[in-house]
């Protein structure tokens, strides 16, 4: 086998999972769809003494709507999110983001919880989570807690999850009213992580075309998904010029150079993608009542 040796655990419940995680502290890691973790183990970029496979924990799977929130279990596969009618109706931004993740083979295994916990800054789901104002539910041996998406992502591949904690679900507020959603990204090839991207949600006033609420999540342009607060505020304040909103959004971003693109290019393309996504979201919102 290519990874360094590890001990394999296979809990059936969240309670069992967090007990094993607690017992091994920073030497243990949950294994979800394995689409990010396994390549890192195989390349020996990461190594853990204990892998806690949560693929058999049924209570972590499922999509439910209650009290204006959509709750999606951590082990719900990306492919299930992609096909789900409730998600399509109540969280269109999440539904539209999903086909942009990797290839269908990856989405068949990859999970929503894994995507959030892995916290790749170029990932779509984390950006959608900050755009919509999602919350993540976290369980540990000592109890559970809820963290706002905006506070969850701390750095590249780093989150508010502590050793021994398990992400159990994500809760997305249902945006209702005159809403529009759009996601735009640029990747080298179909299925690649984005060089830059923007997920946008907009709600218009019922009475006029003023923006009641705006959520903009950027990806690929910083160490974490970026909540473009200045651009959101400008939209609510009446700014409509797409290029200006793009520029404001990138003022909150912090892109860096890597082998695939320079920071300067990411900034340029990011602004452009924000502008396009905002235009599309506004057009959809104007188009009608949701």
């Amino acid at each position: 086998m290519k990874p360094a040796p590890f001990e394999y655990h296979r809990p059936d419940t969240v309670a069992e999972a967090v007990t094993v995680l607690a017992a091994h502290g920073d030497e243990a890691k949950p294994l979800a769809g394995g689409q990010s973790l396994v390549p890192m183990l195989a390349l020996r970029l990461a190594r853990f003494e204990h892998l806690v496979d949560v693929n058999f924990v049924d209570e972590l799977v499922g999509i439910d709507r209650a009290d204006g929130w959509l709750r999606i279990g951590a082990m719900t596969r990306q492919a299930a999110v992609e096909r789900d009618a409730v998600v399509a109706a109540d969280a269109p931004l999440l539904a539209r983001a999903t086909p942009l993740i990797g290839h269908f083979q990856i989405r068949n295994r990859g999970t929503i919880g894994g995507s959030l916990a892995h916290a790749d800054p170029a990932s779509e789901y984390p950006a959608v989570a900050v755009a919509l104002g999602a919350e993540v539910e976290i369980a540990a041996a000592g109890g559970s807690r809820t963290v706002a998406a905006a506070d969850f992502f701390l750095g590249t591949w780093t989150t508010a999850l502590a050793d021994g904690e398990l992400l159990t679900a994500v809760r997305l507020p249902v945006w209702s009213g005159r809403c529009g959603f759009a996601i735009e990204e640029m990747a080298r090839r179909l299925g690649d992580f984005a060089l830059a991207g923007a997920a946008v949600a907009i709600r218009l006033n019922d009475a006029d075309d003023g923006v009641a609420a705006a959520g903009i999540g950027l990806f690929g342009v910083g160490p974490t998904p970026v909540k473009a607060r200045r651009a959101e505020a400008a939209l609510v304040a009446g700014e409509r010029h797409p290029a200006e909103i793009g520029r404001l959004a990138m003022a909150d971003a912090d892109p860096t150079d890597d082998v695939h693109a320079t920071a300067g290019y990411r900034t340029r393309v990011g602004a452009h993608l924000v502008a396009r996504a905002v235009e599309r979201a506004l057009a959809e919102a104007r188009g009608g009542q949701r």
Partner: protein
Amino acid sequence: MSILGNRVVRLEDPRFLTVGGTYVDDVPLDGALFVTYVRSTMAHAVISSIDTAEARVAPGVVAIFTAADVDLAPRPPAIPMLNMAMTRPWLSTDRVRFVGEPVAAVVSETRAAGVDAAELVFVDYEPLPAIVDPESAEQSEVLLFPDVGTNIAMDIGAMMGFSPAPDFFDGCDVVVRQRIVNNRVAPCPMEVRAAAAVWGPDGRLTQWASTQNPNALRDSLAEAYGLEPSQVRVIAPDVGGGFGAKTGLSTEEHLLPWIAKRVDRPVRFVETRTESMLTMGHGRGQTQFVELGGTRDGKVLAWRNVVLQDAGAYPGMGGFLSFMTRLMASGVYVIPKVEFGGKTVVTNTTPTTAYRGAGRPEAAAAIERAMDLFAVEIGMDPAEVRRANLIQKDQFPYATAMGATYDSGDYEQALDLLLDAAGYRALRDEQARRRAEGGTRQLGLGLAVYVEITSPVPGPEFGGVEVTADGKAVVRAGTFSHGQGHATAFAMIVADRLGIALEDIEFVQGDTDLIPTGQGTMGSRSLQTAGVAVAQASTQVADKAREVAANLLEAAPDDVVLDTASGNFHVAGSPTVTRSWSEVAAAAHADGDGLRVDIDFTPEGASFPFGAHLAVVEVDVETGRVELTRFVAVDDSGRILNPLITEGQRHGGIAQGVAQALMEEVRYDEDGNPVTANLADYAMISAAELPSFELVPMETPTPLNELGAKGIGESGTIGATPAVQNAVVDALSHLGVRHVDMPLTAERVWQAIQSAGEKA
């Protein structure tokens, strides 16, 4: 009616698509140990010590070897034109020259044990400055081989008497000049490199290998181990692609028999994808300084190309390939004056090797890019500039200034077919419309008219046909199909000449005990060499069989006819009394020495397929993103035996050619660390990035062989790359962009638009 020319579905595919092939890694080998190489993590360093103590006692480890153990002489480059003093050790001795170079070999009971133990081998490196950029290699004080005193591995200009004539461009109204980077790419066959070595009790070596040329591998192993070729058996089972990179003999495979002997057990080595990206050998890696001069009315008068070829750390096939670039320098054009110079240098990077096209794509890319530069400069349509300079069809055989003799062709017809099929005029109108509108998505058209050389290496090739006692046939070949479909192509030739059903024809290749000689498959050579041998052997088998049938039919052999439609023999004029193949074969085996003919066929010369490609791209001028929207290709590889197979070759080749132009590039950081060593970072192209190709047929037979066939394996990478590059530049030419180096990533294209804007 002949089966030849029909779309016969490949006979080998049902097996690949159902049970799957058998690759080296699948071959059962009792008691085989696994070899894992410890690889250099530094691009250039002196090894001060190697500590294997901890690894030696790790679980499952049988032995560990370093250079100090290996009593084989270092190998000079395999090609004599290269600097023979730049030898390569089996395992690094005092110095490493690229990341990935094998430093030690761990032999273990299991693969996992080997990977774990390899991590426990501690190599102390004293880093040296690395040479990554070939353009700095010649002048650099850093030397990869200090004893040799230079980083120049070959001086093709000096060898071929290049000295730039001062009056070279006299008479030219216009001279265009450009530095062009032909980017380094990775071959990425689906199956990585794998090999196994087993010594028999009789002292005979059996080597299993994922190779393109088993017989050459046998001879080279025999030489390395001081054996007679008959004491070595090479078996190549199914091989999952090679693209040229599996022609040479890798250090990793070559050392296996030595290791097997030392541990007295069979050993096997299968690299990982990352290892493959680091060590299999890269293609291209050529920087070209081109100058083209001509008249304002479009006549090209003088063409000079001076190339700098990157050999990587140890010069080999890749370092030599500029000879092919030189041979094909002037492409499809009549050019009164041609000069070609250049050098090959070593750098602290993966050695370069042959990769689909091997030196010819570099030639086509240079001249086709230069033709477009020239066209823009004189304000003429690129199609018309090309037309004005094409070699005419009545000029064949055509001898070029660089010493090639093109066998046959009709380049103008290829161009006309292309322009017609594409609707070139309408596309130009659409381009003009979009430019006038000034929208964000601009249209670009890119042409390449190409000629290439196939079967470039002279010499005989083996092909044999046997009809067994049951009336079925066995066809043998010294080429080696590793994806090309020879089982189908060669069976079709036999079926055509003998009237034996395809399903009754067995195909044998890849075992040197069954195939006495052979050059293998590279340079698009197989059909025009082994295929012709098989055709001739079939004819001779038929002659033999007619003699046997004559006996059975109580007639003179000259009066006996083989009806290939029914597979029966009869006397001319009386088709009702027949003898079947099984009757004739049974008699031939019972009474005589059977029905087997083996042929070594030596072609009269290399053949020169040609064609014309058109790429249509849309470029988003706000982001630089390129979308290839159409790709039209006329490829003429002589007579087509099976269009399904040649179309498959064209598809794959075009995809790889587009990939080089748009996205693929092997890159290193300034310290020589590879940054594209996996398929996430290295942007290998996929179907999603490609349109459906529009393939236009054209067949101009070669007079060089009785099948009339040339090679088709590499045309795609030769025409497609410059067509796509030209298209992208064309989309932006009205903005002042004249050249963008490959790969044409969105960022690069966007930068080119920005700097053109700043200049304007």
